[in-house]
């Protein structure tokens, strides 16, 4: 028998199952996702949350002494843990401006769309679509923002200019879509308690998207690194619910505020 033929068969026997295995383990994240389930944890993570906050919330819910307290009260108490989580990780320079006055937010003052650190946590819809072999598009209901995630193994181009949503490359890691984004212009980030914090143009974000075993929810674990803003990486989570019936509506009626007060602490 031809040696080349045997080698070819052996290569196929080892290569094909490996390739097939990789594809079958890749979940389909495509489609429309929207607001999280109407559960306690889903509501807690409506915008964003942390493991520490979820743990505190569950402890409060499991304590019979809290059965008569309104959920909003328990949620606020657990969000304080998240406020502490962020404060402990902010650099001395970042702590000087934290939390930012919401009345100074350019999104509020001038209808300027959000940067990546807020957009990835935007409430309501996120639509995930594969566009050809080399990219995935993420479209958000909030601001009707669109991101391109390059999944063909390319490197970030040299001299890539910084932008609101940065430059994103993605890869599959088992059942997770992992997206690394850099070249993000200086902007504002959400803390999980919804307070606002400034970040620098050194921000780098690693997003990890996974689908639940029952297929009904999409989970994001986002790690933010920014040596000028954070003393150590900040890890934030978010949940969406499968919502194939939803459509993203036009987003073009943002009006600049005509009346507001500065320096009001969010309640």
């Amino acid at each position, binding site marked *: 028998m031809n040696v080349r033929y045997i080698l070819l068969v052996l290569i196929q026997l080892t290569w094909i199952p490996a390739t097939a295995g990789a594809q079958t383990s890749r979940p389909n994240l495509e489609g429309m996702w929207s607001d999280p389930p109407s559960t306690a944890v889903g509501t807690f993570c409506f915008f964003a949350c942390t493991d520490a906050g979820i743990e505190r919330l569950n402890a409060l819910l499991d304590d*019979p002494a809290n059965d008569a307290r309104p959920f909003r009260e328990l949620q606020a108490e657990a969000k304080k843990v998240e406020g502490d989580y962020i404060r402990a990780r902010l650099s001395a320079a970042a702590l000087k401006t934290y939390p930012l006055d919401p009345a100074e937010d350019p999104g509020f003052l001038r209808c300027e769309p959000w940067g990546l650190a807020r957009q990835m946590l935007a409430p309501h819809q996120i639509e995930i679509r594969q566009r050809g072999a080399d990219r995935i598009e993420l479209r958000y209901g909030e601001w009707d923002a669109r991101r391109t995630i390059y999944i063909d193994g390319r490197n970030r181009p040299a001299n890539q200019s910084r932008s609101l949503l940065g430059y994103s490359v993605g890869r599959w890691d088992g059942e997770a879509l992992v997206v690394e984004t850099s070249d993000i212009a200086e902007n504002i980030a959400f803390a999980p308690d919804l307070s606002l914090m400034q970040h620098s143009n050194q921000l780098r974000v690693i997003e990890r998207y996974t689908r639940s075993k029952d297929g009904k929810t999409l989970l994001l674990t986002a790690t933010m690194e920014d040596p000028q803003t954070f003393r150590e990486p900040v890890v934030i989570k978010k949940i969406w619910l499968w919502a194939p019936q939803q459509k993203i509506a036009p987003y073009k009626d943002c009006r600049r505020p005509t009346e507001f007060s500065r320096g009001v602490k969010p309640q």
Partner: protein
Amino acid sequence: MKLLRAWLFVMPVLVLSAARGSSHHAFSPVYDEKRTIMVVGVVTQFRFVNPHAMMFMDVTDPSGKVVKWAVEFAGRLNLSNVGWTADSIKSGERVTVTGNPSRTGSQRLFFRKLVRADGTELLPGDAQRLNSVEEERRQRALQRNQQR
């Protein structure tokens, strides 16, 4: 005339809001979440748009003067999740609206509840969400008590 004036008024309401509204669009600089007022009037326009839906209404004050009020809602994205459409509120409808007043005292409020003339109500999406969460909590407490 007395009857007419009776349903056209603005008054403070002793109801604490159940949820924060639309804070991702800077709620706190504009509205006072700690206070709630009620406004009764006739709808002149409902705009079912993003980022925030808006309603405009004519409210007659005790002196008989018609004053324009603006009511701000969560966005269309949020409201449509709980079944609202562009036709949920119609021009010409007499409505009673409860909401958070503006900090500047202008004729503007953030929506918490709307009651039509026939008594039917419209509530924001987070009210329905909170009902589900409270039911989950009741079930959780029940299971906890059964395990004891």
